[in-house]
């Protein structure tokens, strides 16, 4: 796997412009309970996220289950009526657009779903499935549509002879190809790929990822690639956004993110990925406890109940995302000079705010007093009360 020599990839020189701009996107789902089904709370699935997707790039959106990454993808395409925020596609605001207005924009933005079994109508032939968007959005003649369907089948590597078959006759990987062909039918510019390979076997995943890359090059597509698979995202993405409990905690170009993750959550997440190498020395940042419920997120930073480097300020103030290095956005007090060098809350002077090791020592001192009470309150269903630990294996 490590055949290739490490190579510094040339930074893109062309001027990039955003195809999709998301500002402060929020998607809350109401919780109704009691006899009168009154609204008693809300699940903050996506809680104020901002990012942009540049034309021609692949933005990876990673996070664990329940972090809101799929909801973000769906909200972005306005499959939901969003709670608040702004979504601009090629400069056009669609955040508050009506469904009839949106219909004009649908051909530009498409989606590939996780479960190719559930997202294809079992009573429609492959040709009919791929043709459906053409029926809905174009005025092509029947013959033109048929021709286009066969072209699309070629493009995604499906045998034309199978056009009359039904989805059940195909394997998982082939079904995902059908879903991709359908998404491509209207020549979209932007495709949200929601866990497109999660349901596929290891040996099939690479086939689909290579196909997505080929199609991107051929048709100039822009992807939002939503996945929990950090290694596949590293392969496919240009930039990566890491989500935790409805927020983007870190957003950075791919290589710097994987080489040196800055947010404590990103560090823990990356170190938890097991490596297919028995001799690998893995310094693992072990997180204790579970993700708190998005219906009842902790006060302050969302990650404060599990963070190995938590400080008192983290329980009070929600850190804003800031650009700490060119192109690298992190939402963490460790990188906020006002917090780290400020007189209150945190103790000693530190030469470098971005020096994580010092933060760890500091955090360890503070942790004992803070975690017990606060963590217990914030998340009844976890064991965040235990001190987190950093451990090195195999040294």
């Amino acid at each position, binding site marked *: *796997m490590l055949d290739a020599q490490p190579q510094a990839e040339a930074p893109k020189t062309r001027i990039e412009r955003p195809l999709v701009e998301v500002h402060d996107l929020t998607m809350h789902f109401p919780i109704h309970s009691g006899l009168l089904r009154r609204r008693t709370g809300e699940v903050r699935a996506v809680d104020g996220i901002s990012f942009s997707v540049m034309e021609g790039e692949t933005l990876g959106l990673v996070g664990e289950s329940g972090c809101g990454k799929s909801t973000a993808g769906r909200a972005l395409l306005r499959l939901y009526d969003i709670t608040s925020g702004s979504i601009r596609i090629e400069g056009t605001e669609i955040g508050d657009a009506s469904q009839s207005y949106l219909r004009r924009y649908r051909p530009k933005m498409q989606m590939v779903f996780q479960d190719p079994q559930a997202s294809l109508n079992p009573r429609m032939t492959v040709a009919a499935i791929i043709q459906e968007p053409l029926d809905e959005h174009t005025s092509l003649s029947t013959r033109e549509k048929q021709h286009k369907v066969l072209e699309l089948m070629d493009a995604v590597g499906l045998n034309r002879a199978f056009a009359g078959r039904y989805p059940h006759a195909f394997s998982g990987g082939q079904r995902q190809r059908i879903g991709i062909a359908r998404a491509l039918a209207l020549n979209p510019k932007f495709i949200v790929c929601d866990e497109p390979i999660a349901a596929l076997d290891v040996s099939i995943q690479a*086939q689909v990822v290579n196909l997505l890359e080929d199609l991107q090059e051929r048709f100039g597509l822009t992807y939002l690639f939503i996945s929990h698979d950090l290694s596949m995202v590293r392969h496919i993405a240009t930039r990566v956004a890491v989500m935790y409990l409805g927020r983007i905690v870190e957003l950075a170009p791919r290589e710097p993110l994987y080489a040196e993750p800055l947010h404590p959550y990103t560090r823990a997440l990356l170190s938890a*990925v097991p490596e297919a190498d028995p001799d690998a020395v893995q310094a693992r940042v072990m997180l204790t406890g579970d993700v708190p419920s998005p219906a009842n997120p902790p006060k302050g930073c969302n990650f404060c109940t599990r963070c190995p480097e938590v400080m008192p300020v983290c329980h009070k103030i929600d850190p804003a995302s800031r650009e700490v290095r060119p192109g690298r956005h992190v939402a963490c007090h460790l990188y906020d000079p006002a917090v780290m060098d400020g007189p209150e809350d945190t103790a000693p002077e530190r030469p470098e705010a971005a020096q994580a090791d010092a933060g760890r020592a500091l955090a360890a001192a503070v942790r004992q007093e803070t975690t017990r009470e606060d963590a217990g309150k914030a998340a009844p269903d*976890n064991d965040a009360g235990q001190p987190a630990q950093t451990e090195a294996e195999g040294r």
Partner: protein
Amino acid sequence: MATQAEAPVLDVRNLTTVFRTRRGEVHAVNDVSFHVAPGELLGVVGESGSGKSVTMMSLIGLLPTPPAEVRRGSVLFQGRDLLRMPAPELRRVRGGEIGFVFQDPMTSLNPVFTVGQQIAEPLRKHRGMDKRAARARAQELLELVGIPDARRRLSDYPHQFSGGMRQRVMIAIALACEPKLLIADEPTTALDVTIQAQIIDLMKRLREELGMAVIWITHDLGVVAGIADRVMVMYGGEVAEQAPTRALFREPAHPYTRALLKTVPTVRGARERRLTVIDGQPPILTEPPSRCPFRDRCAQAWGRCHRADPPLYPVSEGHDAACFLHDPQAQGAREAAHA
């Protein structure tokens, strides 16, 4: 074969399982032989349909028959053949001397009983403990698997636990009777990576403390690399390769293992420009096994692979591969295939 100092805990020979369907037989497990030494962790790797789960279900008699039929083979567990054991005795072995952890901790726990009751059940059934003793032991077990506030949580129901915590409960149940062998079928697949890391860590610790043998079934080569002593790779219902973990990752001998190792991207080290692909699809096992199951996807296949099913050939000490490339009698053909 490797010289085993101790007799294996589990010795499976020529296990063959078919499913009878209306469209004919599906040859899910073909002539699978392997063994697990006391205290050893054997990783079993394969894709869906490779036969890894069916193998484990067959050997402990958990497959519904019909449609399944264990047609041939023997499964010696501490010298006794599980396949020829009377049902009541087999029930005593299952859950007592052999513990299981399944993939989905939500569906394998009973939602209407408290966690404490579910951990106490095997203790009362297999160990004949009274209620109080079983409850005390259940609390110890919950503490052992790292559930905080164990005493209070004994009275909680499964839905009050998160996914990772439920999997810990499953492990506690499996460990209740101090099994000699624990079979874990994709125990971390349904969990997030940070939780997976916790469970893997827990299993490492428990193995050291309890000294049991473990069979860990997974599709994730990374998980296996970190914990297994030996790895068995399955493909198309057969054992493709088995080797000590380091040998498997350093010198994979079967073309399928080699391809599989190349197709998975990493989060560390060099990033590959393009993923290596294994062309084609896994086989549908409706034809009787008479040819190599990997032949249609193998870059090195030659005529012989289409005529006969390769047996396991020794590659080095304790390292076997079911591939004609390793047939010592066929050096000429091997060179031809490599050229």
